[in-house]
């Protein structure tokens, strides 16, 4: 049987991180095939519900990525998002979820290498944690 | 003991599109199991719960008549998650069905009488069932008058059949739309006003009304005014429903459950029920 591969949901903003992922692709950079990408208009659109729902439906981890502070296509979307994540992350840790399951990053359209690095890092982190169990709904 | 919570399987045989916006579609369903077909006995006015696994169930009036064999017809307006999903169905797909549920129009009492059918919008479904049923035993009934209103000409359902009915000399068809539109040569105005204008004499006449709550609300008093007695006016009500078998409590109004004591009520019954329309 092949080795267990983490399944990670990557929620990427349309203007920076998605383009960054694209660049990583066209530049043929290597990173683990662990992510499934959802493109959204802005990291400010990310409702914590999306993250919880992903974990519940069995993703081993969630990565949310947007434009660097100051670069938001909608001026301040990522600042608002940052406040949400700043509260969400400690709360998830507080209730006992492993801290590294949910991660946030800023990746610009030109940072294909950074995208590859971030994906590699989060995949390693989650591989260390093993498959998610805590919030996963059994059907 | 039957389990009335579990749907039987139906197959989509034909899909008709009723309006240019394609939000109203008519589905003819056939039974997957012969035993289900043989056990399914219904009369005009009853309804079924159509069921889509993963989405839920919604009640729909049966638009076909028991005299039309081989299929059940439903017209579905796309509004919520279940109806949305039904609109994705194609010919040959299966769908769950529970029924027939509820009571029916007083078809026995209509024998030997004049019948006035008043309908509005896409609530004409069970009235179509009734009309076909009456016409299939045309000699048992005297004059049949139909008053059917819609917001605009596009929103009439069963347009082809209406065209046929209009040609018949044994049915009086009156169509009306809310506001005048170019090219519309029939009546304009709300249903209650048209009822006042063209309704037949209450003498030996039974009135059957089905439509949106606001139409029912204003039509019933007009009929009373015209001299129809409370026992001669029937209407069909609707509420949000879940179980359809008088348990879940959602469609409770007064001491009645619309799903088992209705949906058809006489005006005399309605007078004792609060919050009807």
């Amino acid at each position: 049987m092949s080795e267990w591969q983490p399944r990670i949901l990557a929620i990427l903003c349309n203007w920076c991180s998605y383009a960054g992922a694209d660049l990583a692709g066209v530049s043929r950079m290597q990173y683990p095939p662990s992510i499934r990408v959802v493109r959204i208009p802005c990291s400010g659109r990310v409702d914590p519900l999306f993250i919880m729902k992903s974990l519940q439906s069995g993703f081993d981890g969630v990565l949310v990525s947007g434009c660097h502070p100051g670069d938001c296509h909608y001026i301040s979307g990522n600042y608002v998002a940052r406040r949400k994540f700043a509260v969400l992350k400690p709360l998830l840790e507080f209730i006992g979820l492993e801290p590294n399951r949910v991660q946030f990053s800023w990746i610009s359209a030109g940072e294909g290498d950074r995208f590859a690095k971030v994906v590699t890092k989060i995949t390693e982190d989650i591989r260390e944690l093993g498959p998610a169990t805590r919030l996963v709904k059994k059907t | 003991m039957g389990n009335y919570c579990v749907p039987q399987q139906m197959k989509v045989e034909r899909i008709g599109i009723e309006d240019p916006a394609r939000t109203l579609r008519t589905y003819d369903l056939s039974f997957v199991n012969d035993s289900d077909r043989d056990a399914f006995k219904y009369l005009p006015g009853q309804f079924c719960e159509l069921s889509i696994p993963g989405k839920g169930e919604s009640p729909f009036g049966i638009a076909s008549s028991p005299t039309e064999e081989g299929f059940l017809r439903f017209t579905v307006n796309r509004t919520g998650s279940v109806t949305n999903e039904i609109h994705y169905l194609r010919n040959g797909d299966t769908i769950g069905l529970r029924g027939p549920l509820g009571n029916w129009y007083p078809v026995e009492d209509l024998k030997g009488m004049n019948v006035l059918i008043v309908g509005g919008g896409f609530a004409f479904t069970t009235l179509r069932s009734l009309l076909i049923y009456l016409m299939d035993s045309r000699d048992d009934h005297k004059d049949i008058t139909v008053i059917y209103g819609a917001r605009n000409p596009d929103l009439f359902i069963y347009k082809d059949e209406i065209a046929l009915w209009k040609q018949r000399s044994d049915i009086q068809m009156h169509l009306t739309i809310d506001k005048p539109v170019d090219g519309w040569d029939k009546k304009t105005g709300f249903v209650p006003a048209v009822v006042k204008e063209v309704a037949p004499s209450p003498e030996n006449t039974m009135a059957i009304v089905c439509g949106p709550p606001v139409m029912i609300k204003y039509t019933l008093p007009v009929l009373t005014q015209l001299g129809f007695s409370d026992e001669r006016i029937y209407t069909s009500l609707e509420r949000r429903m879940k179980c359809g078998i008088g348990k879940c409590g959602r469609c409770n109004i007064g001491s009645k459950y619309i799903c088992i004591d209705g949906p058809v009520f006489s005006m005399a019954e309605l007078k004792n029920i609060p919050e009807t329309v």
Partner: protein
Amino acid sequence: MNMVRLDKKKFGDFILELSVEHAVYAPGNTGGKTDFIPVSSEDEINLKTLVTDLSPKGIFFPHSEVLYEYDTEGIRVPEKEAGKPIAVWGMRGCDSRSLLMLNKVFGSAIQMPDNKNFQDPYWKEKYDSSVIFGSACNMPQSTCFCNWFGDGPHSREGMDVFVVDAGDHYLMEPVSDKGSNILGKLTCLTDSLEGDAEAALKLASEAESTMVPPMDVNGLGELLNDLYDEPVWEDISAKCINCGACTFSCPTCHCYDIQDEGKGSSGKRIRIWDSCMFPIFTMEASGHNPRALSSQRVRQRVMHKYSYFLEKYGDFLCTGCGRCITVCPVNLDIREVLKTINVYNRQGITNG
């Protein structure tokens, strides 16, 4: 069969013996709250609790119950586990009576126009084979008002065996055939002694004497119907915040919702307790809500309990257990509501 005795020292044996052929439910603790829970030994039972925080309806009508499962193959009703019939220990008169009311809805359904009889198989499967060991209530609380409905703390309605706690022993008396059957089978019981019956009666009259005199509920149904359109409902409902805690703790509230839960093409259709206090209860897909106002919803709950159900099934849909009074966060006391209705009516008459 006559009254029998169970020494409290043998209570543990009794539960074990009962468990052989039954799935036993009794009042127990769940995280600081009391509820009827499945038990297998004496230790799990909380005999001190007066009225359990949650009602016993959940034994027969669980919060969420799978109606059937579906997948690409079709639909399956979950196989009934080769389960034992249910036996319930320690159900007060108010609670056992609530089962009779629920059975009117789920079990012995009224006849439909085409002679269909919609019985609920999920309810019947559990309820019909169950044995209810009722518990005489020796210590009614200030929130108890079972006496309003012609009942008392030592009511036996809905029980199969009537049980009185008489100090160091229980006195048991069969109420139904099922009850006599099971008492005949249990070996840890002994014959009652002289004076036991009198002792039970004495406890009953003592318990009754501690209850607050009831309000007269004769004609309450008609009265409510008459007051349907009165503005008094706005005053009554003003403080209600439609939280729904009352309906969830009520032993007779039985409205439910049906929801599908699944992933992809397989899943389950589940029925789940619902509450008429929530605006979405009657919200239609078109956006029209016939019961959009809080006052309409409060009125619906009161009318359903004290008028509509009476008219349809010949009984109030309330046993006076008082749970809704205890649990209400704004102290909207149902007794006060009914009293307000009564007083309002009298004022209405005097005002002409």
